[in-house]
């Protein structure tokens, strides 16, 4: 602690008289400890310790016993990842699918965010509720709905057949396309929200100034709107990309069997193969790959 004078000033370093601060806030250190200690204890136990154990087990040896590992300082788990291209493919597939999902989300999110931000305030509230409501209705139920639409005997196929556009069911479900549709549907609101905030902050006179200086609407969008909202778009992209890279449920329920994303492989290693060190090593590898996007996202969030 650097003295009570600093707490008065928040994050800024302070040059006020420490004595004055101490007089007013002298009995607060005890209270602060009372607030901090339980929260810190919880975080150490349920966030820091699990991470440490995860890393420890990633470096452990597999063992057929219970629990199925022996603590050691072995890189066997990581060696398995490096040797078998199956795991590398799973990581790369996850990154590719996550990037595609995030890009598709941004494509849909731009006009949605723009439209919501430009709506009259009363209508804007309704549109925002419509955007967030699916999030409250349960993610698995939405996946269920897509399964019902995309299955061979599903809604879309029966519609196509009764319209005479298809003779036999077109395989839609268990394809990469179906998986992407499910992922975009699940994550779309996360891409819209930061962009919406950016469009709300965007000074409308910027676009008018560009038009006034001779820019047509398409040029205004490319030279002003897009660059000014780019940081928010990047934040939205990462907000989708980071969780999508570890996604397990949607690939499992909607994706093709051969689409082995890292989340699915990790799950199988852990629950089916009971190879805890390899699963932990996969988790550590995934984290290492996501470290740069995560730091980038935090930097974008910390911007004024």
């Amino acid at each position, binding site marked *: 602690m650097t003295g009570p004078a600093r707490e008065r000033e928040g994050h800024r370093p302070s040059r006020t008289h420490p004595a004055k601060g101490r007089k007013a806030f002298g009995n607060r250190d005890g209270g602060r400890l009372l607030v901090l200690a339980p929260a810190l204890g919880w975080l150490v136990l349920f966030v820091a310790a699990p991470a440490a154990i995860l890393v420890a087990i990633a470096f452990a040896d597999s063992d057929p016993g219970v629990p199925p590992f022996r603590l050691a300082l072995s890189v066997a788990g990581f060696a398995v990842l490096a040797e078998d291209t199956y795991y590398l493919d799973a990581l790369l597939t996850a990154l590719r699918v996550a990037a595609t999902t995030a890009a598709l989300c941004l494509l849909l999110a731009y006009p949605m965010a723009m439209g919501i931000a430009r709506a009259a305030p009363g209508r804007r509230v309704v549109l925002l509720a419509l955007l967030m409501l699916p999030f409250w209705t349960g993610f698995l139920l939405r996946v269920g709905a897509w399964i019902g639409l995309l299955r061979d005997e599903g809604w879309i196929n029966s519609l196509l057949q009764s319209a005479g556009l298809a003779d036999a069911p077109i395989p839609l479900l268990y394809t990469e396309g179906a998986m992407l549709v499910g992922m975009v549907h699940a994550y779309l609101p996360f891409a819209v929200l930061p962009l919406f905030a950016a469009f709300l902050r965007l000074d409308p*006179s910027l676009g*008018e*100034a*560009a038009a*006034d200086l*001779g*820019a047509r609407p398409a*040029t205004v969008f490319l030279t002003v709107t897009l*660059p000014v909202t780019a940081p928010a778009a990047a934040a939205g992209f990462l907000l989708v990309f980071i969780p999508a890279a570890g996604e397990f449920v949607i690939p499992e329920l909607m994706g093709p069997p051969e689409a082995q994303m890292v989340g699915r492989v990790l799950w199988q290693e852990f629950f089916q193969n009971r190879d805890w060190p390899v699963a932990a090593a996969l988790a550590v590898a995934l984290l290492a790959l996501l470290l740069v996007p995560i730091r980038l996202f935090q930097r974008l969030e910390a911007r004024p």
Partner: protein
Amino acid sequence: MHGPLRSAGPPMLLRAEALTRRFGAMLALDALDLEIAEGEFFALLGGSGSGKSTLLRIIAGFEAPDSGRLLLDGHDIAATPPWARPVNMMFQSYALFPHMSVADNVAYGLRRAGVARGDIAARTASALAMVGLDGFERRRPHQLSGGQKQRVALARSLVMRPRLLLLDEPLGALDAGLRERTGFELRALQRETGAAFVMVTHDQEEALALADRVALLDGGRIAQVGAPRAIYERPASRFVARFLGAANVLEGQAAEGRFDSAEAAATFAGAIPAGTVAVALRPERIRITADGAGPNTAQGVVEDVAFRGDDSLVLVRLSGGATLRVAHAEEDGAPPERGASVCLAWDADAVVALAS
């Protein structure tokens, strides 16, 4: 009385004919007519909701009038989109592009117009030099002070060499200390470029100080247009007299050659036409005297005295009930004390008759 609608000298640049614009139930512009000459500094003065900003945005092309015509050099431009008009605007928020350097901001319009690369650099440099910002080319807008941002915005508009430059509250975001200096600089730039400047402001001092002509707007119509001194000294209506501030406005009845005001308990003599409903009397034209009687005098009690430097503002409650603002110059000696009974007198030519 009303300032000349058509100024005599330079040719007409912009003419608005019966411009009307409605927002829902509100009539922002009510069949407004206006003419602006080439190379003049014109101020649109008015309170919020007077229609001044709507008029500016219609001239720039961001709003379309519901009816009426807008002629630039005799051509109707009401349907021309903003990017195709030889009119440029300096925004109240300055609207500098935050992701571009100062130089790129200034060069933006030149690039859109397809100006050759070498010319862009030269014109950008000279525009920045003109506003005293050479050396700032690489800065970003967030690295500039308010005054510097304002200059960049000016340079960005002026580099397009517009026939008509629109300025939306150009001094509104500046500190009081910077306003006077920037005002003089604006006038110098306007003379230098020869462009017509049309400024929107709610500040009557700013309008009177900067503009060659001022149009005072009220409810989407022009209340009065003319040279600053003309409308200041000869307001056409109670609204104009009150908006320009300072003047005392007294209600009463006109009779042959005189005006009786019950609230002032005084009779005003002078050039009072029939149909006069009120008179305006400027504080600095009123003298505090030892005694006096007859027309153009009044009796009252000093309610308060405020020292203002070169004069004191004395509030005098008249026996009729009205309170007059009286400017008492320092060289006339000490102002009366609070509570003192005083006599007030003014010359006949200080009385301005108001017909509405």
